[in-house]
């Protein structure tokens, strides 16, 4: 058993006390998010695991099996903390304050042997720095998982297909049309054409901030696919500035029906289906008379 693990085993209790004192004295202590007993339990568990891991004599490679348990505990702690709303600093300080505690104990124990003190402190610092990197990695991973889930959710909800009338579908597109979005839009639209037996689809691009040649190409592809299914496609929501840009870019949309607003597109769709929307003059007798 080398000196590092001897010291750690022998002074485990004292290290834990100092560590807990440090953590509780920290102005950033989040006793609103975690009780002090819970914090003590976590700290004790981690220190136990660390003391066990260093008995293997391996002090460099934290990716070996000796450290499996400790990385697991650390990952667990940081992921839960990320979800509980701890800041990165608060999560990182957990391991870093252990370093201070260990250093303080070593300093007392080895005060008369400066060479050994230096060696021990630098070994343990290196080890704990590596462990705190794990904390950060998993903390960020926890956050990223949240972002990825949200991205998926946005993709799902951002491409609704609305049945506005018998045989007429509307598809408001909001945000940038990249290849992945176009794929989802096209799939949803074609499926809905089959499901509802619709013959007209209105693609509304009012919510698309910029139409460059890639977006235009995706739109043209969607229109072609709709036509292959025997349905007609109208593109609406072409704003004045977008119209000018499309002309300058040289994109040919002349064989696609386009309209400035969804209302106009709907009107065109009605006339294509021989439906007429009219105002009627109600006579006082017909119910709602006031």
């Amino acid at each position, binding site marked *: 058993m080398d000196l590092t693990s001897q010291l750690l085993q022998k002074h485990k209790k004292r290290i834990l006390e100092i560590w807990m004192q440090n953590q509780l004295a920290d102005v950033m202590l989040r006793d609103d998010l975690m009780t002090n007993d819970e914090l003590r339990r976590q700290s004790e568990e981690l220190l136990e695991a660390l003391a066990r891991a260093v008995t293997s004599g391996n002090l460099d490679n934290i990716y070996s099996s000796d450290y499996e348990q400790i990385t697991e505990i650390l990952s667990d702690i940081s992921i839960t903390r990320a979800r509980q709303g701890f800041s990165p600093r608060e999560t990182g300080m957990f391991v870093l304050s252990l370093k201070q505690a260990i250093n303080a104990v070593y300093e007392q124990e080895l005060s008369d042997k400066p060479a050994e003190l230096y060696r021990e402190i630098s070994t343990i610092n290196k080890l704990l720095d590596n462990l705190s990197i794990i904390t950060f990695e998993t903390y960020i991973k926890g956050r990223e998982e949240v972002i990825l889930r949200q991205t998926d959710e946005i993709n799902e909800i951002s491409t609704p297909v609305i049945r506005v009338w018998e045989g007429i579908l509307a598809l408001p597109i909001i945000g940038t049309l990249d290849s992945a979005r176009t794929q989802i839009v096209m799939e949803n639209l074609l499926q809905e054409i089959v499901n509802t037996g619709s013959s007209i689809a209105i693609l509304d691009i009012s919510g698309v901030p910029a139409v460059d040649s890639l977006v235009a190409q995706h739109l043209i592809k969607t229109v072609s696919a709709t036509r292959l299914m025997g349905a007609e496609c109208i593109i609406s929501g072409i704003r004045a500035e977008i119209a*000018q840009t499309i002309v300058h*870019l040289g994109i040919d949309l002349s064989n696609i029906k386009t309209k400035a607003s969804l209302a106009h597109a709907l009107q065109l769709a009605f006339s294509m289906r021989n439906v007429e929307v009219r105002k009627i003059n109600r006579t006082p007798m017909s119910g709602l008379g006031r």
Partner: protein
Amino acid sequence: MIVLTKDTMQILREQDVVPFRNRVRELAVKIGMSLVNQTKLITAASELVRNMLRYANGGKVILEIISKSAQSGVRLTFVDEGPGIADVKQAMQDGFSTGRSLGLGLPGTKRLVNEFDIKSAPGQGTTVMIIHWKNGR
């Protein structure tokens, strides 16, 4: 010509396109560009940045606000270290594409902005510089 502000953005993934476009919009709004000219500039920038991602796996963009004889404008310089373009003249023609796209990116961009300059050689990457003035002239 005086450079008033200068900023650089790295474009490495498709996710960088939207923040980049927003940055361009900020600059255009800052100098008081009209909506039509804003849209032209943003669309041109979007074309070039997509080219950069598609053919050169990304690169960097230098964003500047410039001023020349009491007229302000936005200058964007797209620098990549991709394979370069063998025949620039051919690439500037409508409908020419090596990547199965519409082939309107480069010639269309040139029509959208006031000044356009491209330098490229095989193996030496591509640099495209565009300027759009506040009033679009």
